């Protein structure tokens, strides 16, 4: 595997205006950050979006920049659990995030 790769799994909210949860896995870096931003854009923004990064094992500055843009463009929340290695970098980047999906949901409510 020589290219960074990611997958998005979208779980719509159970009621009308409940946020959709997007589980992200894999790696997002300078080579695919814009692809990732595009993929998220494709998710309808009629509902708030929770981007769950619990299973993301790599995220670089380009990825953080993309997330900042996403947060600015749509109603969204990012989940980075306490156990994630990405968390320290997220703090350095001042990226708003939540430790759990529930917390993100509460924040969006």
């Amino acid at each position, binding site marked *: *595997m*020589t*290219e*960074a790769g990611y997958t998005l799994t979208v779980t719509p909210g159970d009621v009308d205006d409940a946020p959709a949860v997007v589980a992200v896995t894999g*790696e997002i*870096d*300078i*080579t695919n950050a814009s692809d990732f931003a595009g993929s998220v854009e494709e998710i309808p923004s009629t509902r708030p979006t929770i981007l769950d990064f619990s299973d993301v*094992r*790599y*995220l*670089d*500055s*380009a990825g*953080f*920049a993309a997330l900042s843009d996403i947060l600015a463009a749509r109603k969204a929340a990012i989940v980075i659990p*306490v*156990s*994630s*290695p*990405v*968390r*320290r*970098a997220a*703090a*350095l*980047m001042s990226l708003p995030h939540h430790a759990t999906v529930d917390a993100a949901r509460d924040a969006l409510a």
Partner: protein
Amino acid sequence: MGEDLPADLAEAVALGGEMGRRFGEYDWASHPLGPLSGWSPAMRATVAVALTSRFPIVLWLDPRQLYLVYNDAYVPMLGERHPAALGTPGRQVWWDIWDSIGGMLDGVVATGKATWSADLLLPLVTADNPQERYFTFSYSPIVMADGHVGGIFCAVTETTERVLGERRLHILNTLASTLVETQSVDDAVRAVLDLGAKPLPDLPFVALYVREERAGSARLRAATPRVADLLPATLDDLAALPADVGQRGAVVDDLLERLPGLASVFVHSPRQALVLPTAGGVGKDEVVGALVVALNPLRPLDDQYRGFCSLLRDQVSAAFAAAGSYERERRRGDALAELDRAKTAFLTNVSHEFRTPLTLLLGPVEDAIAQAGGDEDQVARLRTVQRNAGRLLRLVNSLLDFSRTEAGRAQAERVRVDLGALTEQIVSSFSELCDRAGLDLVLRCASVDAEVDVRMWETIVLNLLSNAVKFTFAGSITVEVAPDGERVRVSVADTGIGISEGDLPHLFDRFYRAGNNRGRTVEGSGIGLALVRSLVELQAGGIEVASEVDRGTTVTITLPAATAESALAGHQVWTAPVTNPYVAEASQWLDAPESEPAHEPGGRDLVFVVDDNADMRQHLRRVLSGRWEVVTYADGEAALEGVRRHRPALVITDVMMPKLDGFGFVGALRADPDLASTPVLMLSARAGLESAGEGFAHGADDYLPKPFTSADLLARVTARVNAVARERAARARDDEDSRHVARVAEFQVAMGSVTSIAEALTTLIAFPVAGQEATAAALGVREDSRIRITYEGQMLPELQDRYHVVGAESPIPLADVIRTGTPIVITDIADADPRYQWTLSDSEDSVRALVIHPIRDALGEVIAAAALLWSHPRSFAPADLEAIRVAMLTTATTVNRALAAEREHRIAVGFQEQLLRLDRGSTAAVIAAVYEPAAEAMRVGGDWYQATPVPDSTKLCVSVGDVVGHGLPAATVMSTLRAATAAATVTDTDPAAVLSVLQRCAAAEPGAHCATVAYAVLDAATHTLGYACAGHPYPLVVLPDGTSRYLKDGRQMPLAASSGNALTGPPGHIELPPASLVLLYTDGLIERRGESLDAGFARLAEAAEACATLPAGAVCDELLRRMAPARGYTDDVAILAIRTTGATPDRFVACVPADIHQVPVVRQRMRPWLRDMDLPDDLVYDVLLSTCEALANAIEHGSGSARATTVSVEGAALDDSLSVTVSDSGQWTADSSASRHIALRGRGLTLMNGLADHVDTVRTARGTRVTMTYRRSAAQEAPHGATP
């Protein structure tokens, strides 16, 4: 008209002024010396020297006649003899002094030896009168070609003024030293006459006429004995002086006629005299007489002479004035006794007169106080009036009592009383006061009857108690009344300061005041005890005093006990007055002055008031406190301490004070260098010019006699304080100026020795601006469309990285300064131009204030800008900005110099590196190389390094070679051989084959003779290295475990050293594990004068092993540093390092094309290496993320170049840390004006700096190297989610 001048004289004549002209026009042909053309060359040369000299020179030409030739400067000495003297025989010209000089001149002609005469007296005759004149001159022979003396050369200068000046000064000094000791007018006169006793040329005689007290002519008081009989008795008979004779005096011209006998007394009889009025005595301007000074007939009365006579007169006047006052002093003593008697009578009268108005004063004041109601200020003022009027009344009463007793008119109305009870009653009025003073008042009053005048007894007791309180600071006052046989003994004993033995006998003398100033106050009239004694005597009693210094004083009064038949008066014989004036006065002594400023200093100027009188202190405070902060002291000692602590703007001090009086206080101030400048205004009740003079003499700046008005005091204090403020401001300015000049000078010296930009910036930071150093300094240098910025000082590495290269159009202040050439000053970025907000806001923590100045080259072009940066907002005074401007000018010079040196070095290095452009296209290994020209010669050399990737293979060929010689020829040959090496590898990379090609090539190239080369081919796939050397130092391998070995196989002679030169054996072959380091280098690296080659090899091996874990680029730099001889390399040095790629447990090496898609590739390769170290997930991610951020930056920056390049990652696991270096061959160039790009790059840099424990960035012309270091335990220690 004279003859045609010989050429050698023509010019001297032209330059010779008047005498040149006269000499040229002189008819020499008719003169015994003959026409000029016939004069010997020596003579003519001497004449030329003399005529053109500005020093007085006279020539005596011809050994017998000594004809005069002289220059313009000599003319004044000839006086009326000029111009006839030219060409005239010496004897005729100087007939008057020929006796003195004729012999000397003849001697020079005869012996040829020069003479030297210093200050020789030559009485030249001017206008028929001989003059006393002095000359210093030398006669030297003019030697002719045949050796005989043809004439005499004389340089001469007149020294009359100096000789006479010294002589007269001596007279004045002698007189002054004699006059100092004179105490009477007669003494002074004698001293003046003594001067004339020995005949002095400048004082043939002196006479002194003194006018009697009133009108009338001044009469002869004394004269030089020789002439005393000749002089008239009155001054008028000697000279009719005009009324307005003035200080210059008058000249008597007909002295010989007026004093007919004079001519017989003197050889050179004086013909003139100067009459000078002498002033002295009571008033300074009163003329009391005249000093007659006869004048030296051999000298004119010029300014110098007149000045001398005036000084003489001044001394005499001063002596008379001093002597007069001394005599007056004595007479005053005699008159005093008489006066004393008169005073007693006077006091009696006057005191009486005082009582009425004082009484009238006190009554209304009391009424006024009662009606003042709540107006406390008014009450305070009235109380002051009341207190002091009361005091005056008491004084007047005392005086009256006293004068009555003195005059014997006092009548004691003695009645029989219980003396114990009466005394106790009187004393008890002091009990509250003693309480306040902290003194025990002990009463032991037995009931004893005695006959006393009750009012007088009151005065006696109150006086004694008042004294006891005045001189007792601690302890007790004991009043005892006890029967003592037939008598009654009353004693007042204190534990005060006591009275010295010397003072005791005079204690009861009236007006006698013990010479101590240690009491609570020095106020007092001195009649208290005298009065007490008189009053006691009126009670038929006696009084005595026993005292011991520092132990106390006991006054004992003995009275006769009451006789049985006298009637006892009622108990209410004595009524205590409402306000006892003694108590009121004494309580004033206890009012402590405020010796601390009430307010914070710094606002108003501080004025000290030092006076022992509390009312006076209060009064001054009231007057002054409207404008100044006033602090009061009661004595000089406390005030001196206060001045040390508070440094007042002005001190107002009384003269008479306890402990340390005003004079002592001012003296102490002046003696202390720190306090000496404190201005002092002295107040004193002692009026008169003399006491003012005394005040000034003791060092007071101003003197104000009491009484004074408030307005007068305010005016004086205001003037003085303002003057001080002005002076202080001026001094502060001066100090600041001189400190400023010193700072700039120091800075310039420091800058002068600086050679590098870094040093220049460090020096600039240290330059204090208003005592403050900058946090950091930066220098931006324009390079085409970019600005390269260097930082020194405290500056976040992250910021340095972000702003190390910016576009020339970037909206940052530094770029603007370079673009516009105008300095920028920002006191706080919060208020800065919005244009800078975006860049400045993210540097807010490190940069808040800055000053940037442009730096221009010799042509005035702005080439750079230097910035001083502060981490906090600050203001700049105009003087600070000026200081910075000057400092920046100096910095500019240094920067220009450093840039020039840098440029020179870069050109040499750059040219070579351009020539030796390293092909980084191969990913087979990490490659680094460095070239260092010999220290003493910045020029191209014959060393090369080269890396040649083999296309479509995992092979990389490298070579390092050395062509004999330097300069362009060697460089040309080197290029040829280098190209041949590259070409050879295209067909065959085998070492033997390559060297064979080179041997052939070198044989055809004359300059290539004896060139050496090391060649190696690396195969990354097989991890092997083949190599061979032609006369070249052995390549060195450093294995990942840190051991090293030289590659000694595959040897052959240097190229073209001999025909048929070839490898002596098979090429070398070695297996290289990943992360191995191979070093190829030229012999300049290891050669050192006076050292064997083996020692050089050993040093290199040691140095290389120490560098084992460093990235390849750092190895090159570090080896250059470690191997450098003390004075730099004597030969060019080339080093090529390759590090094989791959991973071992503690090393990771990767080299990838500069393509952004390689970032995940490296990440995937690196992750297992990190995982295998059992690092925590967090650290693995942190290392990967920061490494990849660095890698992405490296790739972005390298991508500007069209050439295919590579970037590399070298990681090493050390004992407790991990280090990863990302290297590229780019310059991290900035995209112009793209703030968004800078912001994005900023994200990466933030991550790198935030995740790694240390980030070190090294930028060279060859590329950029970022090394990140991580503590292995860092991730475990830092909890998840912690914000660093």
